């Protein structure tokens, strides 16, 4: 089972990068790679405070020297005190260092306007995919007949769909309304659930907010409808919220599913089963290479919680540095701390960068015939729609490729721009999209848009 059908694209990209390294002549000097949400590779700088604390935790001599700011040293010292033997090289409790888990729960409560959060319900994991996978393992009974169904959005983050199928489950797509800014309409949830009758046994509803790849931020009203639907249909809710720090739209506000659920009060707040996921890979930190994530589990059956513990404990614990990264994400420097000015400046810079990028993307792509782009209110990606001329679609068919993959291959080859074809995010008849990361320096975004515009104009002409 192939995880991604566009591996041919990734392979060709690696080849081209190698050719460029060997100074082979091309119409471009380097490949602009916005395929994955990989901010540091795209040129975004890591947050200084985070890296300073991690360095001091790795090499505690730095705690004693004056090389680093005093609050960095204090934080590192405090964190090392929470590690067995004062070293980041020791194993920790399965769910994570208890003090860090505790602080994460405090972060959640603060974020959610006071909604209580129990540290016992939180697991730190090496990346959010690991915990999502474990939760899915518990939900998806690989031996069941009919097979377990999971409602997933179209468009969706590809790995989730793949994981569900790999575990023996069935994905049941519900279509977000592109023309209404990717709105999730509850009638569509009903339709999707009905479509599953006789084909599988749906047990879970997976939502992504802010969206990936589509750049929406859900309204409280939508979220309440989703929660009521889940409750009515006895589905558990998996809320992938890793892009919660990426909100660009002026009128948009991120609300967590936990908060909305909690504020709906009993009986819903006591009964709807919810797993929400967050990560250090996205947002301002962008520390994908560190692999740090957590899941908060709400209203799950105690026996199920035991199963989950066993699953998590098969791999002793998340890397300690990842746990520390999560702690720094949820407990950043505060006004008054020596590191606060720099921290604030760096995060503000990234925020401004993202807002600027999504504005430019919206302007540029909507000015090109053959492209239409919804406003990117949140998340790490743009997911514009391609309106391909019939000749291009025909050519793609001849080459036995999906049309959006065909477009992406050409874009890579001729313009040195690597983006993900929309087909990876789930099929939708008659539509084609591309996905690219918008967490990248402004000049990289500008360069990419410039190359894309030139390429696109030529492409549309070639196939007119």
């Amino acid at each position: 089972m192939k995880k991604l059908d566009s591996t041919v694209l990734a392979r060709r990209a690696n080849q081209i990068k190698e050719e460029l390294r060997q100074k082979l002549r091309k119409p471009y000097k380097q490949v602009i790679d916005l395929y994955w949400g990989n901010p540091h590779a795209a040129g975004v700088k890591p947050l200084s405070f985070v890296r300073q604390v991690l360095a001091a935790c790795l090499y505690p001599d730095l705690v004693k020297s004056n090389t680093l700011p005093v609050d960095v040293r204090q934080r590192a010292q405090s964190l090392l005190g929470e590690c067995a033997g004062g070293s980041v090289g020791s194993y920790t409790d399965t769910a994570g260092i208890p003090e860090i888990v505790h602080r994460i729960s405090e972060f959640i409560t603060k974020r959610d306007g006071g909604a209580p959060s129990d540290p016992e319900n939180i697991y730190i994991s090496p990346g959010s995919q690991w915990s999502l996978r474990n939760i899915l393992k518990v939900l998806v009974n690989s031996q069941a007949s009919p097979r377990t169904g999971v409602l997933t959005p179209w468009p969706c983050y590809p790995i989730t769909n793949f994981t569900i199928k790999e575990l023996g489950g069935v994905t049941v797509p519900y279509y977000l309304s592109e023309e209404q800014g990717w709105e999730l309409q509850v009638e569509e949830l009903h339709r999707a659930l009905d479509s599953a009758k006789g084909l599988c046994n749906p047990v879970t509803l997976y939502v992504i907010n802010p969206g990936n790849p589509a750049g929406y931020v859900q309204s409280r009203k939508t979220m309440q409808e989703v929660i009521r639907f889940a409750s009515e249909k006895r589905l558990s809710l998996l809320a992938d919220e890793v892009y919660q720090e990426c909100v660009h739209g002026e009128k948009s506000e991120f609300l967590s599913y936990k908060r909305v659920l909690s504020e709906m009060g009993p009986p819903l707040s006591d009964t709807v089963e919810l797993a929400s996921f967050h990560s250090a890979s996205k947002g301002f930190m962008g520390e994908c290479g560190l692999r740090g994530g957590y899941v908060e589990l709400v209203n799950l059956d105690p026996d199920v919680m035991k199963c989950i513990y066993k699953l998590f404990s098969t791999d002793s614990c998340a890397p300690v540095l990842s746990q520390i990264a999560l702690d720094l994400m949820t407990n950043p420097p505060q006004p008054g701390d020596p590191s606060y000015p720099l921290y604030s400046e760096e995060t503000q810079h990234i925020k401004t960068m993202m807002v600027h990028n999504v504005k430019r993307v919206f302007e540029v792509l909507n000015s090109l015939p053959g492209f239409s782009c919804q406003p990117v209110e949140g998340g790490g990606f743009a997911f514009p729609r391609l309106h391909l001329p019939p000749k291009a679609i025909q050519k793609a068919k001849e080459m036995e490729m999906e049309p959006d993959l065909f477009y992406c291959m050409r874009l890579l080859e001729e313009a040195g721009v690597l983006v993900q074809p929309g087909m990876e995010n789930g099929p939708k008849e008659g539509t084609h999209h591309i996905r690219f990361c918008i967490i990248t320096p402004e000049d990289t975004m500008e360069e990419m848009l410039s190359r894309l515009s030139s390429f696109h104009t030529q492409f549309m002409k070639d196939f007119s």
Partner: protein
Amino acid sequence: MSSLQEGDLILRGTRAPSRLQAARGTEESAQGAEKPFQQVMDVSTGDPHRAGMKPVSFVRQVLAACVYPKLLDEKSLPLDARQRANTLLGVCSGRSVGSYSATAYGIPYVCKSVTEFIMRRDGGVSSNPEDIVISSGSTKTLLMVLHLMASGEGETRTGVLTPMPCPHTLPTLLNMAGLTLVPYQLLEDQGWAVELDELHRALRTTRGHCSPRAIYISNPGNPTGHVQDRKSIEEVIRFAATEGLVLLADEVYQDSVYGQGKESLSYKRVLFEMGKEYSKKVELVSFHSLSSACMGECGLRGAYMEAVNLDPAVMKYLRDAQAPSSPPVLPQLALEVMVNPPTPEDPSYKTYSQEILHSMTTLSQNAQRACEFLNDLSGIKCQPARGGIFLFPRLHLPPQMVEEAKMLGVEADVLYCQRLLEEEGVRLGAGCENGQVDPNFHIRLCVLAPSDTLDEILARLHSFHLRLLERFP
């Protein structure tokens, strides 16, 4: 709620690790109950830093500079550490440890360093970077291989020959992966040696019950401390060859052979020195990790496997298994430093070699001292260890205690460890976790700890054990 109760049935049969009770329980007891000890001393797992051992300075200096590149100009860090960090940052996308790396099987530069290490270790036997897969910890790496083998139900369910005792995490892993554990007993009276007849017996008795496809072995032994000689390794290889079994060799403690006259030999090396008849045929996967004795970097979570003679399609699967993600970057860099340490011309060499020498000396002295000490206690018999970081002494427990354990619904060695923890604040591992069953009660302790810490642990164990003997004369 009903939806979640339809969860995967395999999980319900899995025995919860005893840490489940211990972990949550300790938190409760730590809150307020009066204890006769200050702090729990935990040597139940192979976690040297927890016990107080210090990390290798060079490793941490390189990693710190990789994480915070401004340190590349920091004069207080040795020049060679900074140069290494600079080189390693060069192989990270965007020169950041925070990027996903380009390949799912490990950063090619690191894979190459690993193969160079292997070739040096094995007297020139060649090693190919394409046979190396890196992952975040040996559990993950092993699981990747186990998942591949898992198939069938009942009689056709894949079986793995597993030494008894085995690493305490292994039985759960095999269960999770849907594999049948086929035990082969190691010979305790011969220092936990591997016996060929026993391998044959295990295989014979299991046919018809499952489909054995692999044999797992750890060398140096975890938790036994046994180090196989060439003859023993050859026997296992021949057995695997004849019976068509994949050899899974856990060699994490390869850097900790200390017994007199003992030589550290890798399965790969012995295999190749047996000639083409075996070296071209036997399927071997060997595992190594940052949790080794000298590094002790369990919390960093980094490991690799070297696969020999596996089907190309299988190799491709293993290399793609983590796609489109990639293993965390920092542990990979730590692996690179582990396999490519300072050499005599380097400024850091002196400190590095002193630190390694100190670890090894501490380990071998501790192992010897602890073994003698334990053997002096009535009711405890300990085989001498020649490598690895554990001791695995046998307990001859009073029958009344065994009875008491039965009534409480736990294994007697678990009860022993629980009582020891409650009364003396020392946490050891219960031998049943390593597969030893009634009446072969054992305890497991990691002896890679500062000497005075070990002495304190032994003193408390002594005190507890004597009280126990008095209680049950």
